């Protein structure tokens, strides 16, 4: 390739790298939201009546709820009636294995840099891909099946394992929880389900890639992870969405259940379209993620790298119910241009000797606003609860903002809660030092930022960490110098 072409390509890729959309026939619901639409979705998905009833109940609850306003973000209210609540890629029949998947879908994932075949062969990752709502391919099912591990789309689980779904659906995030959780409960289209039986250690990272494709489609996934006693699983979620002018809504619900001595690691790298340099377009990301350490000595660990979305509102939380259970939250949230992020966590200590650890690294650039909101709640019977929170903010330039809102709610005097917070700026002298060694300013920023976020990035599985580092650099391009 000639040098000029290379430069042009590089320039283009500095705009949102995944900003394109493929045209293929979709099977979509009419615009708007009412009981009929919910029935339409449920029929389309050939759901049992109990699930339809559950959805309708959630819809009633949602209708009675006001839209929340307390997060430290500002945006024009979305017209929820102008959205389409179901959009599935048209396929004549469901694929049985990867070779039967629509080649065009495979091509999309290849453009995204996720080749199923490659992933399958090289990384030993089982992927359940969700494209605009319907799970289109599930790999590695066989290997997992031998261990009794279930990993499939949510709709499939509804059909094949209704007893598990009925038992756990809404048990961690009830439909009454909040506005967006209620909405999700009413209209969720698909998502992933995973069950690890007693005493089984899942031998590979389970991974889901979400991507929003059709215009004006709200994406409402539902993820349910159940780790039975003494089991272990590491779950990865990655997201991208094509560039669009209208703001698209994403309101997912993730529920994690960990039994006694079970451990669940949940990692997210989110790089949805953040809107352009003038703040136009971008994804609205309102997600409810919660895990319950239901048994003694169980552990749930959330790791997130948030680089995308125009507006993010997200607080992965842990309910530490079992004695000696542990909750962890590691987060890097980057905002640039006009992005707004309000993220954090809630650690709810119920059991005795429960421990939680929060490491939050915010990075703000451009005219963006980055808020950390963390709540540590220690209930009356939670003797010897421990929490450590570290909240750091890194500012680039002087037009952005970083805000920290720690909330403490301690009902047991034996609790030990520590909170540390720092705010720093990338120093000119640091950048000059890098320049003096031959490192260009953009790369210097990437290096310094990755160093700053290292404690969190270290929590990610290797190949995810590499991707996350690149994303951080990409998000911050052009923000200094």
């Amino acid at each position, binding site marked *: 390739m000639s040098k000029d072409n290379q430069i042009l390509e590089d320039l283009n890729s500095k705009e949102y790298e995944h900003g394109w959309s493929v045209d293929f026939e979709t099977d979509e619901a009419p615009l708007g939201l009412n009981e009929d639409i919910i029935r339409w979705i449920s029929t389309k998905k050939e759901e049992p009546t109990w699930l339809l009833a559950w959805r309708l109940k959630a819809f009633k609850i949602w209708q009675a709820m006001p839209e929340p306003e307390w997060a430290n973000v500002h945006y024009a209210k979305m017209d929820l009636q102008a959205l389409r609540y179901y959009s599935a890629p048209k396929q004549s029949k469901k694929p049985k294995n990867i070779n039967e998947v629509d080649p065009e879908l495979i091509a999309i994932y290849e453009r995204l840099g996720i080749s199923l075949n490659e992933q399958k062969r090289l990384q030993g990752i089982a992927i359940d891909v969700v494209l605009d709502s319907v799970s289109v391919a599930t790999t590695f099912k066989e290997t997992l099946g031998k261990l009794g591990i279930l990993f499939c789309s949510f709709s499939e689980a509804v059909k094949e394992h209704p007893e598990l779904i009925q038992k756990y659906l809404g048990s961690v995030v009830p439909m009454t929880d909040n506005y967006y959780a209620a909405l999700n409960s009413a209209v969720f289209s698909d998502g992933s389900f995973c069950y690890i039986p007693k005493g089984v250690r899942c031998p590979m990272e389970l991974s889901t890639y979400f991507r929003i494709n059709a215009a004006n489609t709200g994406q409402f996934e539902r993820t349910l992870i159940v780790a039975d006693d003494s089991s272990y699983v590491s779950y990865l979620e990655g997201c991208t969405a094509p560039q669009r002018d209208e703001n698209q809504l994403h309101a997912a619900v993730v529920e994690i259940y960990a039994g006694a001595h079970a451990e669940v690691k949940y990692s997210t790298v989110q790089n949805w379209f953040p809107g352009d340099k003038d703040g136009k377009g971008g994804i609205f990301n309102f997600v409810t993620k919660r895990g319950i350490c239901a048994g003694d000595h169980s552990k749930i660990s959330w790791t997130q790298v948030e680089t995308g979305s125009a507006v993010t509102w997200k607080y992965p939380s842990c309910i530490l119910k079992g004695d000696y259970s542990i909750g962890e939250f590691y987060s890097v949230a980057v905002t640039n241009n006009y992005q707004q992020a309000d993220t954090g966590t809630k650690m709810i200590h119920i059991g005795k000797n429960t421990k939680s650890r929060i490491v939050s690294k915010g990075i703000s650039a451009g005219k963006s606003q980055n808020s950390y909101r963390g709540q540590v709640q220690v209930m009356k019977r939670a003797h010897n609860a421990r929490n450590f929170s570290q909240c750091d903010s890194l500012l680039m330039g002087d037009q952005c903002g970083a805000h920290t809102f720690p909330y403490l709610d301690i009902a047991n005097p034996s609790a030990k809660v520590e909170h540390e917070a720092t705010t720093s700026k990338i120093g000119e002298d640091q950048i000059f030092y890098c*320049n003096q060694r*031959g490192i*260009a300013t953009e790369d210097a920023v990437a*290096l310094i930022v990755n160093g700053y*976020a290292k404690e969190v990035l270290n929590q990610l599985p290797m190949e995810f960490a590499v991707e996350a580092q690149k994303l951080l650099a990409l998000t911050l391009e052009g923000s200094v110098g």
Partner: protein
Amino acid sequence: MLSIKNLHASIEGTPILRGINLEIKAGEVHAIMGPNGSGKSTLASVLAGREEYEVTEGEVVFQGKELLELSPEDRAREGVFLAFQYPIEIPGVSTTNFLRTALNQVREYRGLEPLDAVKFLSLMKEKMALVEIDQKLLSRSLNEGFSGGEKKRNEIFQMAMLEPVLSILDETDSGLDIDALRIVSNGVNKLKSEKTATIVVTHYQRLLEYIVPDFVHVLYKGRIVKSGTKELALELEEKGYDWIKEEVDSTATV
């Protein structure tokens, strides 16, 4: 190799360098001495391209190129290296990782392939031996929590890795213990060749016993007011700067 003509520079409107002239040829070592605040570090920073300093007059030619027109990173890639008087900390970034990024960017500029991990590691090993630096130090965050001496030694290690054409050592000797001074100086000497040149900024004659200068210059109030051979450093050690200050201040035109 380096030709500085009538260089004036100021910071926030205050003139610091007020007409520096200096010619350095390949293979030479020049020592720059002078009282505190005379502008030695400023000269080093201006050569390295620090943007806070405004060059108000003069020109600098480095290997046929207008140095002042180049960005700081391109100066480094052309072969200018500054061992900082006060090295900067970068939390979370190991020296190893930092140097790999730096070296590969320098190589790319020079049209060379990036070094793969194996080749990089063996280069590291070779240079580590040269300045006798501990591997453990290199995997820690760059300069974070390093002792004063460790920082200085790390600077020279970086110099060894990047193999510059012109090295500017700003008070590299301060903070080094007696053994470290010898080791680091030996390292610098081994890196010297007839193709490279070194500028050593120091307050002490002791360093110049190890790194023997061809020329010694005294900087005072932003000008080179006296130049000589290594004997000048001995004289300064003995008599201090007062006699030079008097000489200059009595004939001062400003």
